[in-house]
């Protein structure tokens, strides 16, 4: 009888889990209060439905505060483990991104394979909302890395490079004339800040020349 008590107690303890709201991608922009974090949350209410994105935005001063505020918006558990992409705007990239990279690396929910990309021209928030498919941006960046169109720089490699000498290259994306995300070369970081973009036009003069 005593042997039965232990498994019974274990069973009684196993009821406390919250439903999850998985985040597939995030976008970080500058705004008046400091930063604005937009998360693409995957919604799928029934198994028959297809997964569709929903967007949540919060403003704040730093990344930890933003993630916490975002979690407070939802009744479910904000789940970052399946986030594949973090888009950062040019303004954010022009400030130092090392604290951001460190925070993401230390967050146990965030995968080190998260891809960080810099959005050229437009806001990161707009680009995130440009596609109605979940994981479309992640697949675009994976494919571009496989084919060599964009640098293969997941979070851990970028953080390592920034820590080494403050320089790194990150993939850059921009919106095309149809409002879709498209590869836009490489964002070059020096002293932990965005220095310039390289898109191939630098070699042999401008494309339209």
């Amino acid at each position: 009888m005593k042997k039965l008590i232990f498994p019974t107690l274990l069973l009684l303890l196993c009821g406390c889990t919250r439903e999850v709201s998985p985040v597939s991608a995030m976008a970080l922009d500058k705004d008046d209060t400091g930063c604005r974090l937009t998360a693409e949350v995957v919604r799928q209410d029934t198994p028959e439905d297809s997964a569709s994105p929903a967007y949540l935005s919060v403003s704040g001063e730093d990344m930890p505060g933003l993630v916490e505020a975002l979690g407070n918006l939802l009744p479910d558990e904000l789940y970052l483990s399946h986030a594949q992409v973090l888009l950062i705007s040019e303004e954010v990239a022009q400030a130092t991104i090392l604290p951001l990279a460190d925070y993401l690396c230390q967050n146990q929910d965030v995968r080190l394979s998260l891809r960080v990309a810099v959005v050229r021209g437009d806001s990161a928030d707009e680009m995130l909302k440009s596609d109605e498919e979940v994981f479309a941006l992640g697949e675009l960046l994976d494919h571009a890395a496989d084919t060599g169109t964009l640098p293969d720089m997941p979070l851990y490699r970028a953080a390592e490079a920034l820590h080494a000498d403050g320089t790194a290259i990150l993939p850059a994306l921009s919106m095309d004339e149809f409002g879709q995300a498209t590869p836009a070369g490489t964002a070059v970081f020096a002293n932990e800040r965005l220095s310039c973009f390289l898109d191939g036009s630098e070699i042999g003069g401008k494309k339209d020349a």
Partner: protein
Amino acid sequence: MDDITFTTDLDANVRVMQDIFRGDNTFVTRYAESPKGLRCAVFFFDGMVNGIAINQSVIRPIVCSDLCRSDADVLAQTVLQVNDSRVEPDINKMFASFLYGDTVVFTEGDARPVVVNTKGFAMRSSSEPENERVLSGPREGFTECFMPNLALIRRRMNDKRLKFTFLRVGKRTNTVVCLCYLAGVCEGSLVSRLRRRLEALEIDSVLDSNYIYERIRDHRYSVFPTMGTTERPDVVASRLLEGRCAIVVDGSPVVLTAPFLMQECFQSNDDYYVNFLQANLSRVLRLAGFVFTITFPAVYIALLMYHRELLPARLLFAISAAQRGVPLPAGWETFLFLLVLEALKEAGARTPGAMGQTMSIVGGLVLGQAAVSARFAAAPTVIVVAIAGVTGLMVPKLQTATLWLRFFLLAMGAAFGLYGVGLGSGLVLARLCHMRSCTVPYLLNLVPRVAAEQEDAWLRAPWFFMRYNRFPLKRHDKREDVR
């Protein structure tokens, strides 16, 4: 029975017998008297004896005898025309034989009875055991009759070293139990150990071999079997050849074998009658099936509750969507559905014939579908439980272990995640390492020491590779090559 005494007075002996069996309408007394004056009394139980044998071999010889008087020895040796008759001065043995279908004959002037083997009760014919069917190979199975069962074993082993030792167990039922072994192949200490255990049994009745099994096996509270059970004579013969002992119990078609090793749980009769490649694939599948059935629900719950990051994204979305709106937490939901599965299995097993199959199918399909539609349960949980249920049927010898370990690991997984599943599995493995069956380590041969021991452990080697013809338990015996 100790206070019963017979005298040389035949009528007095008849009165004693009739007093003992007063109220039993199957008890028959028959006087037989020859014209010359030989007078005997024949006792038997109606329905237990072969009437033709009594008429032709007992009564007719007495009635036609030329003797006017005869003692028990002469009666047994010269008058009665049967192949098996003896003078039995031991009252207890006489009654044991009499109650088991033998005929007792008293003669005037001798207090000693003659016991004549006239057993002739109805019994079913040998057929293939329902739960040990094979695709090819022998199809004979044991029945509830004792001697025919021993004959089935001896017919397969024409070896003078094959021994059958009889014991009687059960104060009320006085059941005959046979200890069967191959002298010189089976360790003497094993035979004496099992004999001691059987002789030490303090038990009123033995109606099936399980009465004995639970009492004499090692680790009596373990969920893992420490004695083998089979209804097939070919399996018993094979185990005797490997140096094991068999225990045949009168009235039970199930024969016990000892020692029993873990590897035997994954062996099937078919393994030895089909091509070794096919047999080995099946054996690996059974092993994987056992691991799968006890760990799958636990791993599912652990992943869902503690390690969602290990799930592929789209699978997580699908499971999360399915879980939405389900009232119970996933752990409890899985636990309850496993209980429902066991209830369905039990109902299917207890319901007769085709109705049982229908019940299982209807119960499984309709209940599962309805539970998902009504949001009582999530579809992935139903799938996990169904897969665990199906794979659990692959190793019937470990059904008890499967049932309990599945719940134990589920509790560990629900409480501690994958670490709990690992810890629970480690505890089970440690326990298995500690276990012994008749002093033989339970996991013997699963850890390779000598190549020869591996010939039929994890996998079955082809017959032409088996150098020692599978005698793993006694390695120093002189063996002959099978080539």
